[in-house]
Structures are given as C-alpha cells and as structure tokens.
C-alpha cells in the first residue's frame, strides 16, 4: 500500500515541472509565438531558485527568484522576436544555448552545496486519510500551483474575452491588428508568462525534486514540454494528461529497471517518450479539432505596416 502511494507521489513530482513549463508554452504558442527557449528559461529558473534559496536560506525566496529569473530571461526573447522581428526559431534555440551556458557559469560555486527544499503543505488531519490523503493533501506547494495553473489557463483561454483575443491573435495576427487589437502587447505578456512558468518549473527541479544544483539538471525536460504542447494540440487538459503519462511511464520504467526485468534498459528508457507520443496522437486524431486548435500564425513575425 505504502509503496503504491510512494510511487504515485513520485509520478506527480516527475510530471509537475513538465506540466508547468508546457502550460506556459501553450499560452505563448496560442498567441502565435514559438519560443524554443523553454529549456534555457527552465535551467535559468533552476539556478536562480537554488542560488536565492541557498544564499538567503529561504526556499520561498528561491521560488520567487526562479519565477523572476525565467520571466526576465524570456524578456530577452520577447525584445528580439517581437520588437526586432527576428526569426523565432533561431532566437529560441540561441536562448536555450545561452541559458545552458550562463546557468553553468552562475552555478559554478553552488555545485555540491546542500540546498533548501520547499516544505510539503500538509493539511493537518486530512493527510492521514489512507492513500488519497497524502496524494491530495500532502504534496509540495508547486504541485498545487501546477494543477491550479492548468485550470486557470483553461478558464482564461476558453471562457474570458481576453483569452478569446489571445487566441484570435494566434489564428491571424493581421486580422487582429485590423480590429485594433494590440498584437505586440499581448504577445509580450504571453511570452513573459511563459518565461515565468518555465522558471517556476526549473525552480521545482532545484527546490523540490532534487534540492541541489547540478549543471544541465533540466536534462531535456524543456524539450519534452515543447513537444507535449504540440502533441496535445494546444489544449490544456491534454497537456496535463500528457505530462502525467510521461511521468508515470518514466517512474514505471525506473522501477522495472531496478527489478532487473530482462528488457534492454535503453528500450525501457525510451518508453516514456514513445508512450506519450502514441497516447497523445491517439487523442488528437480528430483532424478537424486539431485544425481548429492549431494557432495558424504560429512562428510568423508580425510587423504592422504603418
């Protein structure tokens, strides 16, 4: 019984950073901007969060620092692609490269230092409920943020006027501009939101998952988050499903490897990727729905003619 609960808890911990980073990127892409710098913003969040927590002794300050770091780093991308209309793909890739290098330099003195861990938010009494108690009421704060964030983004995109405006910009920025919508302003805010989310996801890694600083500790999670958004056809609940499928298969194959089942470990390691892709492709086989949800102006720079 306890083992099951522990496994379920580790699945949630593995899925949370993916979910947060992907939800942030989903909003960015819904506004029509493709930011391939998720990995870079995430690792900056991780080093910023660890550093601030380590220096002040407060993991909460570390959390704030992680969010701020991601947002500030994404601002660099926003200025380049939105104000200067550079190529989004190239700029995003260089953001990732810059983030990986810069974080390594900033974190050189943190390597091997013990970090601060965010305490779990235990709800007194409720945590004692068998099985669901610890799953629902005894997790780290970022887990709750990730679930609330998903629900909030869903509500924002599909129930509010501002969300509708954001989606319309992703569908056709030229039409949106003709209606008098401030395309660039919306995109700036979206990119910064995405950066803050990526930073938070990075903070989860260095403040909850493994409270220490290891160079390149995001280990490709930013790329997985990016892929999740596309395979989830830009729908928040599918991103949630994708993140948890990935997390579950990831943890599952770790345990399978530990048990020493006679399957090559390389094959097991590739399972999470395979399973996520297969499931999400199956969910989004309705071509029409996918078409409706794909931001048609994704990746195209917008320069209004004056």
């Amino acid at each position, binding site marked *: 019984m306890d083992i099951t609960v522990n496994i379920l808890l580790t699945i949630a911990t593995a899925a949370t950073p993916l979910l947060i980073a992907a939800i942030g990127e989903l909003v960015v892409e819904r506004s029509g901007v493709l930011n391939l710098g998720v990995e870079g913003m995430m690792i900056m969040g991780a080093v910023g969060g660890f550093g601030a927590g380590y220096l002040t002794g407060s993991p909460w300050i570390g959390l704030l620092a992680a969010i701020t770091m991601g947002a500030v780093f994404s601002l660099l991308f926003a200025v380049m692609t939105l104000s200067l209309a550079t190529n989004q793909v190239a700029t995003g890739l260089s953001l990732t490269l810059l983030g990986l290098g810069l974080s390594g330099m900033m974190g050189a003195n943190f390597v091997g230092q013990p970090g601060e861990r965010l305490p779990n938010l235990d709800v007194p009494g409720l945590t004692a409920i068998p099985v669901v108690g610890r799953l629902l009421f005894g997790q780290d704060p970022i887990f709750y943020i990730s679930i609330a964030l998903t629900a909030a983004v869903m509500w924002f995109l599909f129930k509010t*006027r501002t969300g509708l405006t954001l989606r319309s910009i992703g569908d*056709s920025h*030229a*039409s949106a501009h*003709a*209606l*008098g919508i401030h395309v660039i302003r919306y995109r700036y805010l979206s990119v910064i939101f995405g950066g803050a989310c990526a930073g938070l996801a990075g903070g989860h890694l260095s403040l909850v998952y493994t409270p220490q600083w290891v160079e390149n500790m995001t280990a490709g999670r930013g790329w997985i988050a990016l892929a999740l958004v596309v395979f989830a056809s830009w729908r928040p609940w599918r991103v949630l499903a994708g993140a948890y499928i990935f997390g579950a298969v990831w943890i599952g194959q770790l345990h399978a490897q530990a048990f020493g089942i006679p399957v090559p470990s390389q094959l097991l390691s590739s399972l999470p990727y395979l399973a996520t892709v297969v499931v999400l492709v199956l969910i989004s086989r309705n071509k029409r729905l996918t*078409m409706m949800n794909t931001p048609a102006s994704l990746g195209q720079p917008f320069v209004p*003619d004056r």
Partner: protein
Amino acid sequence: MSADQDGANLLEVRGLTKIFGTLTACDHVDLNIAKGEIHALLGENGAGKSTLVKMLFGSLEPNSGEIFWNGQAVRITSPGTAKKLGIGMVFQHFSLFEALTAAENIALSLDDGSPISTIAAKARALSYSYGLPLDPLSLVGDLSVGERQRIEIIRCLLQTPQLIILDEPTSVLTPQEADKLFETLERLRSEGKSILYISHRLEEVKRICDRATVLRHGKVVGHCNPRQETASSLARMMVGNEVQAVVRAPAEGIETAPVLLQIRELTRKPATPFSIPLRNINLEVRAGEVIGIAGVAGNGQGEFFESVSGEVLQEDTGSVRIRGKDAGGLAITGRRLMGAAFVPEERLGHGAAPRMRLSENLLLSRHATDGKMFVGAGGMVKSDAIYTAAQRIIKAMDVRKSAPDPEAAALSGGNLQKFIVGRELDRRPSVLVVNQPTWGVDAGAAAHIRQALIELARSGSAVLVISQDLDELFEISDAITVMHNGELSKPLPIAEATFEKIGLLMGGAEPGHAEHTLETA
C-alpha cells in the same frame, strides 16, 4: 436624394498624402462625405483606394494632410480610434478568424465585455432584421465567402457606426447576393448613415451611389454624380483614356473539333477540414473554344485547378486527359510536355518566384518544354537565349518595368500578371488553363490579356478560364459553366447564358430548378 444636405459633412479629408518609398500611393487627396449619402470611391487597381481607406481606418499613417470628423480635426492613429469615432469597415478579405465561431469573431471587435451568448443573440436578431440570416455558432472556416461577408457587415453594424466603409464588397458575391447587399445599404442610408463604397464595377456604382470621387495614380481626377454619367464616361475618368473593347470572333466548327482537354468523373477528397471536395466533375474543352468556369470564390476552383494542372495527381486513370492521352498520373512538368500550360491564381510565390528575375522565372516554368532552346550541353543554362525570350514576351505583352530584367516582386501586380500569362502564351500551348487571369489587373491590361486568350483559342488551342469576374467570362467565353460546392454545372452556350441564370447556379440552385424559377418569375 439626401446628398443635397450640404454643409453637413460627416467626414472631410484635405490633402491626404501617403508615400511608400518612391511611390506616392495617395497624392493630396480631398474627399467629402455628407451625412446620409452613399459615396463611391472609384479607381482602378493600384489607384490608391485601399491606401486612402486604410488611412481613414487608422491602419496606415498619412505622411501629410488633415482629416475632419463632424468639423473637428482628428488624428486617426489606430483602428481602435476609428471605431471610437464611429467609423466601421467591411474588409475585402483577411479580417475574420477561421478557427473561431461567427459570434466569437463579432465579440472580438466589440469592447463592451458582454458574454458571447448575449452577443450571439444580438447578432442573430440584427442579421434577421436586415435580411442577412446568420448562424452565430457556426465556424467561420466552414462558411462560404458570401456568408463570411455577412458576418463582417453584422459585426460592423453592431458597433453602430456613423460611417461604414465597404471595400469591393461585391467581388465575392453572386448577383443575387449583391442585390441583397444593395437593399441593406439603401436601408442604412435611410437610417441616416453614411457609406463609403469602394468599387471598380461601374454599373453598381451608377445604381446605388449618390456621388463619386474618382482616383487615378493616387490623385483625385474628378467628382461626379454617377447617375448622370454613363459606364463608359466613368471608365474614361478612371483609366484616363479609352479602353480597347475585346473582340470575340464567332467560333466556327467547334462541334467537330477534337477535344484537347477532357475531365471525366474527377473526384477529390478534401485535403484539409476547411477545403472543398470535388465531386464527379465532367468537362470537355475542344480546339478553338474558350470555356469559362464561374463561381463564388472558395467553391473548389482552387482544388480543381490543382488537379488539372498536376500539382495534385489523380488516383483514377482517365479522369484528366490532355490531347486524348491520360495525364492523371503525371505531375505538372509531364502535363506541360503534353502541350498544356497553366497560369495559377496567386502571382507571387506560385506563378512566379518573387526574388528571381523575370528571365529566371521564365526558365523555371519552361526548362522542360523548351529544354533544347534554354539548356545546353551538360545542363548549362543558356542565359542569352532566355534573356532574349523574356524580352520578346515583355514586348508582346507590353510589360512596364523599371529595369531590363527586374525581379518579379519589383513589378506591379498587373504587369507581373501580363508577364506570367505571356510566358505561357509564348509557347503556343494547345491547352491553356488559367485561374483568375485578370485579378487585380487594370482595365487596359485586362483587355490585352483577354484578347490574347481569345486569339490563342481561335488559332486552334483549347482554353479554360476560371474566374470570379462574370463580366470577364461573358466577354471571352464560348460557353460558361459554374462551380458550386465542388460540383460543376453543364456548360451553357454563351448565347443562352444570362447573368441571372449564372447567378442562380453560383448560389447553388440546381440547373433544372434554376430554369423553373425563371419561367415562373
């Protein structure tokens, strides 16, 4: 009627100028619009109509000049400012969001923040009261162009504007839909609203407009009362000189001439959720004749052209035959080698590579058919021969350009179109398929292209023209057929075709049904 309430100008424009690089798109333009009038803005493509209107709606900033709204000097810096003043606009294209519903599209342009369901109900009520029925919950991507325009109009009306700008509103409508639009406009005028009506169709301007301002090369060349002018006098003001009338010699012996292009039971599944499937299309084009395909945009013409030209291959053998041989499995080069030539709708990026020179564009489409002439031993390109051929085409089609061999993108739309059509005509193809031959081309150049198409047919080729411009089809075709929702009607010989019959077919009436309603009417 109400145009004589002078002194009560809603909008006054003085000396408005817009310069793009070396081109003066609008040159000290003056325009007055009174309350409760329908004011026509006339001019050929490239005369500066769209530029002027974009400045009035705030999406372009003028270099100099003044705008007065109800007598007050105003600066319209963004579409938002224009909407606040009470200026609404119905765009020619590119202002709806395909992946959203009609109601969501409408909500985006209103700033009142009321829930979508309220807006949907309001839009539905307003649309029925104007006789422009609209289902607010339908997805724009699924709607026909005419229905999309209704959304634009309703969206504009919900903002209760004082001035409504309509940019070429009838270019995508059937004649019957256009009549409906004119009723709506007359009703709006009787409600005291002003309308700025942009068009190059003279008959409709004569029919509904109280006054007209004529633009040519960015300058105002005259004001007039269109009701007191004739279509040809208006055309003269627009073009600046007489337009050569197109002459269509009667086609003789067509019935016995060989079929050069045959489409048999052509069927195609939709490629994307928003595209149109082709259903069982049959058509024969004989040597010596011009067949016109009419239809409202987006009814499968693009898909049909792709299938015939070989951009998309056919699954069934025999559904496209060129000069009696099956071409369904051949790509575009293969079909060209069989003697066919194709002119696509989109000039830049499809008909021509924008950043390549005209001579290079010539080589791109004719390297296979004129391989001996243009490509030498070892695949080396014979630049001199290509250059000479390009100059020959430029001369034959009277292409105006700024350099001897400019990049395609440096030419104006009309001149590039002349070059692209000329490039194919120069081959003397035995089958020519053209999609929108004169879209966005000025009247003089359009007449030139149309005459050339007729002459090609009379010299023994089969010519198939897809066009949204009914006037054009009536001018050049020997028979007209209509594409609606991926189906093609039976060709109607030109002697029997009328605007009304074709219009009914364009609106989707069954051929038999169309004749029936005509008899009872």
